[in-house]
């Protein structure tokens, strides 16, 4: 048996002991996870610095702050989320118990990404744990140091049989994908997403795919350009542009292009100093392969700001490109780097047309003081999420579902959405073997009269308070008496 097979088999065996069923057990595991973040901040930050050149504060802000908030939210609400949820009944089932029973799926596979390794690997894990599943965690091998820290630390804090960490590259991931899981949660790019979905098809395994896309950013010429550019600069160059919901490219009228470039240039200086390479708050490209990929995109566009780079350090300066055309190299795939192309458009109509020509993105941004502009953009496009007048921050609201549509992904999570996504919502009807006379109308031999009664009883829903229920019950008993008299006697 391969190492991967063993980990999955152990996780399934641990799941079958039933210990993850109790809400107390799940809350304990989440509390332990919470302790990991409060006790091991230094180790986490050191690894992230090596992988992505983030400062300790940056690592906390972008990675662990969100997780700590999410864990608190879960601990507070888990009991309620995991409880049976009562639903409407029909007349015939009025005296029965009808509810939805949230249950674990079984063994979930969580495949993480490298850009916010803790955020995108642990956040699905939180959902998996809360829903009572076992989970095999496969961190991205691209962020080498963080992946090692996860492998070392997670087993110390949470149940190492239920939640094993399996590290490795493509062959190890492929071996994992040959095993049977009850759900596969993948964060990454669309190309691999298709491979994952195909592998899942063999076992009829449902998937959640958090992918990416080119998230457009439209700037209305009438907006406060200075504030807009500040928010966009922050959203674009955080983590050196390696964010699935970073504003990928800007659409604006030619008349404001120069102003936009000026404002972005100003903000870059304020945030990252005159020399971003020496600024501790500016990140690096994850590795040489991605460095080359991003640099190749510059080939056929005009650089308005930045462009400096250093391959040995995987450094690319915060860069703005002007007068970019839709056919340019930089517009052919998700940039995932610190290049901000500006495509001049004649107005909102052209912007919407251009956006709809591409695949549905994970996020869509519009900066405008005019609600009508915002509404048109929202109504005439489709995207995973939509944010007006800022970038990225919709991610931080746990009550909003976070996920893609079309090429940007399948399914959503965060907060209760994670819990529901990784649960099976089982419909339950608990009856008694009484009131058989009422059932009689559905049994053969069939008559038109019985059909009339059945139509009425089985298929009308009822939603009344206690008094109404009692009144209806009385009526039901009377009717049952009549039915019994007519058909059984």
């Amino acid at each position, binding site marked *: 048996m391969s190492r991967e097979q063993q980990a999955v088999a152990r996780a399934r065996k641990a799941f079958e002991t039933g210990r993850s069923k109790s809400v107390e057990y799940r809350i304990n595991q989440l509390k332990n996870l919470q302790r990991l973040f409060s006790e091991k901040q230094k180790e986490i930050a050191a690894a992230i610095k090596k992988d992505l050149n983030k400062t300790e504060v940056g690592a906390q802000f972008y990675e662990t*702050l969100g997780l700590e908030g999410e864990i608190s939210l879960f601990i507070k609400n888990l009991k309620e989320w995991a409880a049976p949820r009562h639903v409407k*009944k029909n007349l015939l089932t009025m005296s029965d118990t009808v509810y939805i029973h949230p*249950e674990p799926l079984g063994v979930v596979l969580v495949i993480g990404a490298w850009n916010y390794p803790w955020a995108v690997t642990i956040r699905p894990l939180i959902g998996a744990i809360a829903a009572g599943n076992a989970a095999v965690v496969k961190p991205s091998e691209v962020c080498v140091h963080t992946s090692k820290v996860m492998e070392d630390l997670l087993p110390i804090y949470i149940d190492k049989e239920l939640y094993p960490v399996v590290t490795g590259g493509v062959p190890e991931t492929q071996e994992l994908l040959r095993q049977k899981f009850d759900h596969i949660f993948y964060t990454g790019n669309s190309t691999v997403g298709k491979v994952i*979905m195909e592998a899942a098809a063999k076992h*009829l395994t449902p998937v959640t795919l958090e992918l990416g896309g080119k998230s457009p950013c439209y700037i209305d010429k009438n907006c406060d350009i200075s504030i807009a550019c*500040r928010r966009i600069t922050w959203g674009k160059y955080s983590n050196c542009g390696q964010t699935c919901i970073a504003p990928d490219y800007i659409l604006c009228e030619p008349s404001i292009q120069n102003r936009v470039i000026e404002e972005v240039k100003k903000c870059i200086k304020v945030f990252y100093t005159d020399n971003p390479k020496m600024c501790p708050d500016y990140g690096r490209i994850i590795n040489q392969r991605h460095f080359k990929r991003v640099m190749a995109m510059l080939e056929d566009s005009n650089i308005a700001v930045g462009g400096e780079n250093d391959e040995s350090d995987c450094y690319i300066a915060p860069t703005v490109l002007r007068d970019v055309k839709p056919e340019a190299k930089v517009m052919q795939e998700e940039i995932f780097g610190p290049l901000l192309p500006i495509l001049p458009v004649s107005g909102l109509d052209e912007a919407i047309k251009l956006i709809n020509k591409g695949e549905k993105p994970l996020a869509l941004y519009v900066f405008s003081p005019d609600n009508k502009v915002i509404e048109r953009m929202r109504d005439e496009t489709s995207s995973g999420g939509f*944010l007006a007048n800022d970038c990225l921050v919709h991610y931080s609201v746990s009550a909003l579902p976070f996920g893609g549509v079309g090429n940007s992904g399948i399914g959503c999570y965060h907060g209760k959405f994670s819990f529901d996504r990784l649960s*099976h919502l089982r419909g339950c009807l608990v009856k008694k073997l009484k009131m058989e006379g009422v059932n009689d109308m559905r049994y053969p031999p069939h008559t038109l009269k019985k059909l009339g009664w059945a139509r009425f009883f089985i298929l009308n829903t009822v939603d009344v308070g206690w008094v109404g229920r009692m009144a209806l019950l009385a009526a039901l008993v009377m009717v049952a008496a009549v039915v019994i008299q007519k058909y059984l006697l």
Partner: protein
Amino acid sequence: MESQSQVLERLRTAFESGVTIPEKFRRTQLTNLMTMIKDNEEQIVNALHKDLTKPKFEAILSEVEIVMNELHCALGNLTSWMQPEYVSKNLATKLDECFVRKEPLGVVLIIGPWNYPMQLLIVPLIGAIAANCAVIKPSEVSAATDNLIMELIPKYLSKDCYAVVSGGAKETQALLTNRFDHIFYTSQAVARVVLQAAAVHLTPVTLELGGKCPCLIYGRVNATAAAHRLVWSKFFNAGQSCVAPDYVLCSKATCDALVPALRQVLEDFYGSDIQKSPDMSRIVTPKHWTRLMGLLNRTKGKVVVGGEHDEKDRYIAPTVVVDVAEDDALMEEEIFGPILPILTIESLEESIKLAKRKEKPLAFYVFSDESSVLENSSSGGFCSNDGIVHMTLPGLPFGGVNSGFGHYHGHWGFEAFSHRRAVMLRGWALERLNALRYPPYSDEKLSWLRWTTSPKSCSIM
């Protein structure tokens, strides 16, 4: 005749024109669908009788009324389903508008099965009229209903937005090479093929499959009442229901009490010559009949009720087989026919273990007052002391786990065909508050941010 790609292009153009978005349009389509069913009830019943020898009562209850019920539910609730859902915020986003918008996906494909050819095609369609354009592919196996649907849908629904594509395996495979925004598949046979085709375009899928639905009978149980409900849910549609109780697990004593009760109830329902009763369906095709007879011939159990059959009439009598072992032919696959194996297992715990050794079924039935079964089992849905009826409640999500994924009925159907788009509308004010997040980063800024973005800070406000 239009080619498949022409049909799809037409639907996509219609979708992109935005015509399916206004509530009025969706209501009109749903109302037209209701009219279609009301006006053609007789034709529907006749087609179903031709395909499955479905008794009129069963056709009305399980193919007409259940669809009308879903339509009433959709029309009664569409406005509220379409409303955005506002969500709770943290302090940093207190002044912003945050909500979830239900948006259409685009062009969806619904592939129906042959056992409830109207219900299992039209109920998903109701969800899809939640503002998608839809291509529906009825099962060619239930040919008369397939033809009727082909004829009726274009008469009542917008031809630009909804199209019916007929055909067999070849046409379905060709259809699947196209790109859809959601695929809804009910059946078993080609689930993996559907999923693999969906993976090529990253298309989300709802799979409504089947499985062997166990029926556990333990404790003090009124054998006659249980027999009534068991016979009704098992032999409805001649056992060809994805949620029919597939096999029974009970003790020897219960089995001894149950068998005569089953025999009696069968006679009460269908008379002494069941083949002559107008209330019993037939097996859908000779191929399926042969498969079922094969199972019956290979069983090592004892046939104690029924067993009669007639190939020309595609008839198999309601049959009860006892002394069936776990590795019997009748336990290999979903039966999907009027054969009821009874396995004798003395203890409830052992029964639960046996059921767990099999794949998770679409439904799990228990006749008992024992509550531990729910907690110790897993299935799409659960019903105690009856069969099938849990799926008539639109409030309950109907779907499987391992026996499929995704669910529908009522608002669950609306959600299945919608994209829940997170929307956040920020203002321009409070830019100073935003400064906390901009570089240069500092510990002090971080502490403030922790406070403003935590869920706790909401309750202070």
